[in-house]
């Protein structure tokens, strides 16, 4: 939890979001590679947090960033059939890693959950 961010939350519960892809990223980030590019649904808005990706480099974590719980079907992340159809991933992601799903021409959008 941190002081108020300058911007209100961009996403609300129920919004479909796409996770930003940064394949060449070499710095410490808190969004694992396996969810980058995936499309999920916001299930929780957890308020502004100090940015851990700035804190990791000794900065003060400002400006604070909104944190969201996002659910993504496992079958979308790993289409090789190892998981069961209804199983999902729940993961916390920071706002700068999310885009509205309909703004992003990702190849995975056809598997957006309801």
């Amino acid at each position, binding site marked *: *939890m941190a002081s108020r961010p300058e911007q209100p939350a961009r996403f609300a519960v129920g919004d479909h979001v796409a996770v930003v892809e940064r394949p060449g990223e070499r710095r410490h980030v*808190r*969004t*694992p590679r*396996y*969810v980058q590019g995936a499309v999920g649904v916001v299930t929780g808005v*957890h308020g502004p*947090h100090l940015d*851990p990706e700035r804190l990791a480099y000794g900065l003060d974590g400002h400006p604070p960033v909104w*944190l969201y719980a996002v*659910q993504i079907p*496992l079958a979308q*992340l*790993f289409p*090789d059939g*190892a*998981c*069961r159809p*209804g*199983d*999902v*991933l*729940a*993961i*916390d*992601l*920071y706002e700068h890693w999310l885009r509205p799903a309909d703004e992003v021409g990702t190849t995975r959008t056809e598997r957006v959950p309801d």
Partner: protein
Amino acid sequence: MSAKTPDAERRVHAMRELLVERGVVDDDVDRQIGADASRSWQQGARLVSRAWVDPAYRQRLLTDAKAAARELDVDADAIKEFVVLENTEEVHHLVVCTLCSCYPRAVLGDPPAWYKSEAYRSRAVREPAAVLAEFGWEPPEQMRIVVVDSSADRRFMVLPRRPRGSEGMSEADLRGLVTRNSLIGVGEPRPVADA
């Protein structure tokens, strides 16, 4: 330190000295490590058994886990945000940290070695049902698995389903049914017959 000390150990020693010298950490780190080491998942078992016998407590544990822990003298303050996830007949939560080894240590103590293993961290998200089966429990077909990847500021503990046939049991006896694995979601509590 001697010439025979392995390189890695010498590096750790040098790093530690530097961190203290430059004021990045102080002796408090030792105290904190000691405090963490004294903590055990038995604290989590106490929260669970209370929640099983007291519906109002269960609700408080699910809405404000830190405050609910404090009621039982479990200090979760070292965790930024402590969240308890309830397993039901419909939904089974399984906790993993794919990036590293995030774990609610203040409540559950150190994570088991397998929790930090690459095998668990990669397979828990890819094939959770298979991982659960290897831990000795197969989730029923209609039960949805929610794999919770602790990649951020929040730390998770699972509130497992209360075992069938445990209706008449005391809170203390119920505590004996809780296992560490059930608090991570890689298994069920002990069945009543085993208690």
